[in-house]
């Protein structure tokens, strides 16, 4: 009962708040956001506790069982994704509240900037859709939530109002819609063949035939486009880098994880028996290419937000290593590693984007040249960036280290030295771009730069998030135990003796 309320609340609370905020056009819109954030924290906590105590929860919404009703389902990985969403969501909410109220107070900026009234309903809808996606128990529901996420994400990018951002948003829209079409086609094929959209029922009935294989390929290709796996990442850097400061972190941290989560669900819970191992390896190879390409591109950028965006391309690559590594004896390690990395990357990347947003707000630009010596003026922000960077590089103590250790262990355990080499090399390349920013910012070659004042919350929110990443490298027993609850049967069966 508890869990049912929590799951319904996680979806309905932000949705209701979005409608209220939009309809009433209240002046205290940020207060609504913060209230939602507090409620979400409590609900996530309660649901996680319930899952830890009594395992996966399935809830028929309104009492209607599948195939008629819309069931919700939560297991360990959904809980971890919800924790991730809440963590990034709450800090982003606080950050956005400070950011927009500061914009409003500043007459020079407000004219060119988006109205605060548009951000909140969009973000609350996005939040609701993310939660709904992580709790979905059928593939059509996943489609609906993916669409909601895409539409609100595109609108959020467009909020920046500049030509660059609009172009990027449109390009993202087309890519994401294309992805959705592929996915929907796959869903239609599955439904026509098996007569159900519940992924639990599908998992029991899928046959290794051509039709299923086609459906699976269509769905996964569509989702790869949304997750921006190399070489389908073309839309990502511009979209994430040109979004408004509080939005970039949400896009890189959460929106990408949504479509990745769907791939995980489909691959490990539904299609695993019918997918050939070579398909998994292909995803791993693309992942490896993404790590190298994304990192090298990040190193070559002159704009910090673009750098961080390309870093996302690389980090998404790490997530896809799991598909090649989970087919063999050490699969469980890779599974945990990838899921934990999704969490680690979301927090670290959102923190990095928030820092970049704050500094860009202060300096007026995110060109690296303009940031020379900024660390002497704003040590806390640069320190935050460094903490987030520790996780991106996969160095201890951080959640990113634990995740990469698990992936590395799986890779070496399978004798996949090329994957191990890419994992390690990716960390080193990440160090190049992270320390490039930090080095420039600590330079004393120029006089201390003059900057615009920034609200205190725009310093503290990213720091809290970055600290969470570090804590995630120390307190790991609970999240990893969470991941074992409802872990996919295939990976569990193939744990090394």
């Amino acid at each position: 009962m508890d869990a049912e309320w929590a799951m319904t609340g996680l979806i309905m609370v932000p949705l209701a708040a979005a409608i209220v905020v939009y309809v009433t056009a209240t002046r205290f819109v940020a207060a609504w956001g913060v209230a939602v954030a507090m409620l979400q924290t409590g609900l996530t906590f309660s649901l996680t506790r319930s899952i830890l105590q009594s395992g996966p929860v399935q809830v028929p919404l309104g009492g209607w069982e599948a195939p008629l009703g819309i069931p919700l389902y939560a297991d360990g990985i959904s809980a971890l994704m919800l924790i991730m969403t809440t963590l990034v969501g709450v800090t982003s909410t606080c950050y956005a509240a400070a950011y927009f109220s500061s914009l409003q107070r500043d007459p020079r900026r407000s004219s060119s900037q988006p109205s605060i009234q548009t951000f909140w309903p969009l973000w609350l809808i996005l939040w609701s859709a993310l939660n709904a996606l992580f709790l979905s128990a059928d593939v059509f529901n996943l489609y609906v939530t993916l669409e909601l996420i895409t539409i609100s994400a595109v609108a959020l990018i467009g909020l920046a109002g500049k030509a660059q951002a609009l172009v990027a948003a449109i390009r993202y829209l087309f890519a994401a819609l294309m992805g959705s079409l592929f996915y929907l086609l796959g869903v239609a094929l599955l439904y026509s063949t098996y007569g159900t959209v519940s992924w639990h029922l599908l998992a029991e009935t899928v046959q290794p035939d051509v039709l299923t294989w086609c459906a699976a390929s269509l769905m996964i290709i569509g989702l790869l486009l949304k997750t921006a796996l190399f070489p389908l990442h073309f839309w990502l850097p511009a979209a994430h880098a040109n979004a408004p400061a509080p939005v970039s972190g949400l896009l890189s941290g959460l929106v990408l994880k949504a479509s990745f989560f769907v791939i995980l669900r489909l691959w490990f819970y539904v299609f695993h028996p019918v997918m050939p191992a070579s398909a998994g390896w292909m995803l791993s190879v693309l992942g490896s290419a993404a790590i190298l390409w994304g990192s090298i591109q990040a190193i070559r950028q002159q704009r910090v937000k673009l750098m961080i965006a390309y870093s996302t391309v690389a980090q998404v690559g790490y997530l896809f290593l799991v598909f090649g590594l989970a087919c063999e004896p050490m699969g469980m390690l890779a599974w945990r590693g990838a899921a934990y990395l999704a969490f680690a990357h979301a927090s670290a990347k959102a923190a990095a984007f928030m820092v970049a947003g704050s500094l860009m707000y202060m300096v007026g630009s995110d060109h690296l040249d303009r940031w020379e010596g900024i660390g002497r003026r704003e040590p806390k922000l640069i320190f935050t960036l460094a903490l987030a960077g520790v996780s991106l590089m996969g160095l201890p103590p951080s959640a990113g280290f634990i995740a990469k250790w698990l992936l590395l262990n799986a890779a070496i355990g399978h004798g996949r030295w090329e994957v191990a080499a890419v994992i390690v090399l990716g960390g080193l390349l990440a160090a190049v771009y992270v320390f490039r920013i930090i080095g420039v910012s600590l330079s004393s070659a120029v006089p201390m730069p003059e900057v615009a004042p920034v609200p205190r919350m725009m310093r503290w929110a990213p720091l809290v998030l970055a600290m969470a990443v570090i804590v995630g490298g120390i307190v790991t027993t609970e999240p990893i135990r969470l991941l074992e609850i409802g872990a996919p049967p295939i990976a569990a069966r193939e744990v090394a003796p």
Partner: protein
Amino acid sequence: MTIHQWLPLLVIASSLIPGSIIFFLGEQQIKLRTALNLAGAVVKILLVAFMLWGVSINQDYQVRYGLVEGLDFALHADALSLLFVSLAAVLWLLTTIYAIGYLEDSPHRRRFFGFFSLCVTATTGLALASNLLTFLIFYEMLTLTTYPLVIHRGTPESLRAGRLYLLFALTGGAILLLAVVWLQTLVGPVEFSATGSLAQTDPALYGSLRLIFAMLIVGFGVKAALVPLHVWLPQAMVAPAPVSALLHAVAVVKAGAFGIVRIVYDVYGAEFCRQLGVMIPLALVAAVTILYGSLRAVYQEDLKRRLAFSTISQVSYIVLGTAIAGPLATTGGIVHLVHQGVMKITLFFAAGNLAETLGVKKVDQMRGSGRRMPVTMAAFTIAALGMIGIPPTAGFVSKWYLGIGAAQADQWWVIGVLVASSVLNAIYFLPLIYAAWFASPPDAWPDERPRGWFETSPALLFPPLITAVLTLLLGVLAGLPISALDWAKLIVLQEYAP
């Protein structure tokens, strides 16, 4: 949790907590910051002293905390870790005092002292680590926390040095990570244990174990500045003097050497290493490093750079003693861990005093400095004589044990290396000592500070004085049961236990 589990954590917390608080203090809250620093350092020494006493009556201090299955964060105070922790604790207090004097009125002291404390935290952590994973965690932490110290001045030159340092340290760390994970997939989680734990491994894996050994040595060798991985060290001399002092005496360079000692004795085991045939190559690398470092030191005109090359050479004595592997040579190597630290920190303190008080940075500017700064130069002289290995200093004790250890192991060429290195040490140190005391001072020093009560400010003067006295005491009192030598013998007794 009992006090026996808390104690190792408290030793680490005694620098972690002050360090973390310092970041949140204001730049101008100097008194509070200084009080925190000193309180942390004193508490750490007291805790370590208590732990030394406990271990000497066979008390077991350890704590274990599971991260993921097969991954344990584990600390354990064994004899070897206590040797290193004691060194770190004592030298941290002295360096902190020194740094407070040295950085008076310079900008960004909050950042400096924050990372300084974190750097010591990482060092104590890796000293107390009781398995490879924990060691690795603190080893990487050390890289990250020393970077801001190396680039503290923020000049293009120091940023360049910082980049070079990261390039070497992070690449070394990556190789180390690969090796540790590989080793773990072969033999399971690796705990440190006296006499090592790999001897029972399936002979089919010997090839892999050799390769892993090489990777581990490369990973640690980067920080221990084994030739040709030493390139970053002389460049890192752009850091402020207290940083160089700590880097060379306890933190970075010593961490690498300590790692090699751990690998050889507590992971592989000396006997098993010999069986694998990896000891001779390691000894050769160490010998080359010793000679190369000394040789390059002779040609350095910059005082700090000369000391840096001297460090490269001296730290490899530890590696050499480890690689010769006989009880006596091991004693020599392990005791040098302490002796080199005390002597080298004295030299760096003295060099810092010369630069700070007189503006003397080059070797040829040192003429007559003994008359202007007698106490500093006396300390310098004692430490330099110790480096050469002249009795009754601490350096003599190390070299003596290394020498008879080599003889015991029938490795006579090692004695040749030791003699050659000592001669080179004499060549690059004695002229300095001579010039300092017997040449007449110049009319004006390059950049002299006004003279106060003492030859320089007390915070700069007393630390080198204390370490110089320690250098003498460690040599003269080496036979007493409380000396570093005695403790090293205890460690060796455990390592070579049947």
